């Protein structure tokens, strides 16, 4: 028997490591050794806990103490107080913003209460680099069950019955996709994992790969068994170095353990996985472009049909699923399709991971059952809007999605409701906007992204989106008319209808959705030449209130453009022609005489 009485889990995700969590690990280990406790206390580098807002996170088991915003300098105190003497370090506990009470167990935090972690089940719980810990948590048991207790068709049927839909954006039924791929006969088929996570702000796939890489390997092998493929390919972006490293190690460990390779678990089934690195092009998240990129061709989509299930990687039948989709597979096989289908809404089963970001208090990764409302995600789990500001909209679905306004706060989130509300699930990015955000600016941001990422193959996307972006720029510069708004909508609709792939077909969504929900704001820009949120620089004016100005000359001194004139002790005036709207005068004035309008 071991003498280990305590596990100290330190978050080793990308977020926390960039806040020195590996130094915390070293400091904890050194201090534990110094106290002579190396045989009794184990420090484990775990995956992402999701509560990135409060990272780095250190969790102590079995007493479930959850320390937040820990620094390497705190290690000594944690060891001396908590580990040696059993006293919790109160100052490092999470403080509930509503009650201002210290909460030591994460189970009692609003951030975790409403979450249901299926895809993220092992993230922040196991050491991702230790295959043994994954196996201890039923790892590879689903693969064993599939190979020895189920026929490939039964596996496909089970996935179909679960109602799992693709988590990468499209929401296509996973079981159906497998069935189609299984139906083609070929000497070689491929299972492809799409780990080219590209939506701005989304990082759930990265976290799963970093925190639970074996779940993806196991799921890909299960898929291989189901569709009759012996080769797996992971297309991962090279800009995820930690995820690449952990997945690589996991593949090696799985091979060494005999869970990848020939005759897995003594059966006739053989399967192995290769990794390919993408250069980070958004369009390569589209499956046909991804496959072309895998073949060392330009990352451009091809028209479907033929679908990859018929003719994919090297012309062979291929099944492409996203990381989060795969992460659900082992659980579905072990717990059963009925269990999975009991979670969620009528047509969207299971859970969805959202990357909560923007003007919300608790930024992080949250996994909730489908059908949870936006209000629950933003106000209960997310802790509401930062600095007590007013909620304006939530942008979901990334550059292909749209904005959900206040009237959708109580809509249950699932694939179909989001589409009905003019947005989409996408890969699960959720960016919260407050009253200070200008919606024209938001549309411009996302469109700027897609224009940058367009592969240039088809005209509507290459040229159309660029023209739309120019129109938006014209609007925020105050040079557009109402006619431009109707032309903008017309062009958006044409691009949507005529683009070749998902990127172009969805690129106008942020524009259309903001036009639909915030038409007044667009009108203010074109008719009144005013930006209600005060974000569009060209439409903003800094003015001096002559009644408040004391003529101290400070503003004139700091103005880099020489736009402020006036005599000492007399009210000054800003020349709007010369003003570059840098705001230096506004920040300098001690009398509050300068205002934005």
């Amino acid at each position, binding site marked *: *028997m071991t003498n280990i009485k305590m596990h100290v889990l330190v978050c080793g995700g990308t977020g926390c490591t960039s806040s020195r969590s590996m130094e915390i690990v070293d400091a904890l280990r050194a201090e534990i050794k110094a106290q002579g406790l190396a045989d009794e206390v184990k420090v484990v580098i775990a995956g992402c806990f999701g509560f990135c807002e409060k990272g780095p996170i250190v969790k102590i088991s079995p007493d479930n103490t959850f320390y937040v915003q820990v620094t390497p300098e705190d290690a000594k105190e944690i060891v001396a107080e908590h580990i040696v003497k059993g006293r919790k370090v109160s100052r490092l506990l999470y403080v509930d913003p509503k009650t201002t009470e210290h909460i030591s167990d994460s189970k009692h935090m609003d951030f975790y209460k409403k979450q249901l972690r299926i895809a993220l089940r092992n993230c922040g719980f196991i050491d991702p680099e*230790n295959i043994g810990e994954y196996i201890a948590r039923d790892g590879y048991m689903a693969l064993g069950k599939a190979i020895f207790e189920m026929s490939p068709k039964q596996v496909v049927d089970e996935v179909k019955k679960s109602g799992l839909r693709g988590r990468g954006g499209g929401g296509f039924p996973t079981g159906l996709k497998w069935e189609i791929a299984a139906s083609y006969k070929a000497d070689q088929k491929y299972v492809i994992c799409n780990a080219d996570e590209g939506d701005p702000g989304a990082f759930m796939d990265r976290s799963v790969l970093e925190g639970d890489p074996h779940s993806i390997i196991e799921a890909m092998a299960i898929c291989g068994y189901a569709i009759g493929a012996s080769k797996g390919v992971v297309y991962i972006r090279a800009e995820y170095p930690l995820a690449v490293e952990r997945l690589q190690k996991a593949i090696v460990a799985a091979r060494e353990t005999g869970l990848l390779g020939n005759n897995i678990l003594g059966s006739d089934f053989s399967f192995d996985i290769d990794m390919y690195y993408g250069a980070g092009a958004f369009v390569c998240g589209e499956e046909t472009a991804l496959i072309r990129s895998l073949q060392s061709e330009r990352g451009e989509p091809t028209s479907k049909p033929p679908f990859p299930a018929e003719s994919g990687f090297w012309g062979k039948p291929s099944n492409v699923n996203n990381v989060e989709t795969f992460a659900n597979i082992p659980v579905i096989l072990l717990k059963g399709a009925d269990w999975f289908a009991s979670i969620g809404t009528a047509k969207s089963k299971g859970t969805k991971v959202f990357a909560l970001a923007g003007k919300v208090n608790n930024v992080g990764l949250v996994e909730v059952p489908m059908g949870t409302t936006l209000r629950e995600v933003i106000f209960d789990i997310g802790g509401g809007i930062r600095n007590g500001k007013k909620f304006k909209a939530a942008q979901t679905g990334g550059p292909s999605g749209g904005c959900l306004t206040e009237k959708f706060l109580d809509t249950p989130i699932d694939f179909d409701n989001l589409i009905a509300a003019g947005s989409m699930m996408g890969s699960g990015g959720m960016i919260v906007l407050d009253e200070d955000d200008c919606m024209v600016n938001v549309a411009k941001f996302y469109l700027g992204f897609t224009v940058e990422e367009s592969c240039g193959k088809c005209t509507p996307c290459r040229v159309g989106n660029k023209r739309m972006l120019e129109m938006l720029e014209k609007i925020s510069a105050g040079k557009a008319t109402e006619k431009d708004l109707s032309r903008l909508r017309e062009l958006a609709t044409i691009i949507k209808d005529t683009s070749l792939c998902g990127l172009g077909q969805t690129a106008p969504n942020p524009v259309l959705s903001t036009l639909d929900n915030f038409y007044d704001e667009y009108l203010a820009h074109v008719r009144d030449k005013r930006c209600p949120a005060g974000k569009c620089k060209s439409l903003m004016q800094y003015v001096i209130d002559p009644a408040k100005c004391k003529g101290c000359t400070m503003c004139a001194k700091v103005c880099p453009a020489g736009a402020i004139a006036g005599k000492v002790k007399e009210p000054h005036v800003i020349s709007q022609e010369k003003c570059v709207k840098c705001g230096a005068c506004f920040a300098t004035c001690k009398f509050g005489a300068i205002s934005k309008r």
Partner: protein
Amino acid sequence: MDKVKSLDDLRKLKAAMQNATELREKGQNIDKLIEVKVSMATCGIAAGARETMAAMMEEASKRGMKNIVFTQSGCMGYCHSEPTVTIVRPGEEPVTFGDVKGQRITEIFDSYIAKGELVDGIIPLASKSIHD
């Protein structure tokens, strides 16, 4: 790690690996387990609390008990009776025992931990902690 060559091998490996994450699993289900909190104040440690904790963990493992979890707590103020141990049976009020060492460990295991029967040497709890 040896190669697993059959489903049986995998099951064996799982059983062998169970203790790797057992403490964390227990932490997640702590409400359903018998929690033994050993008071680790300076006087407790001086009186042998660390040895008591080790001995109790060994006793539990000897008895093959899986439904028990050991944690540490701070000074409880019962310096006269160290080492002190608080035991929380699921859904029941905590009970604190004083002078827990040697023979008393087996006694507490035999009666309170196994059957929920009280033994002599209980310290009446007059306070609650914010973590309760």
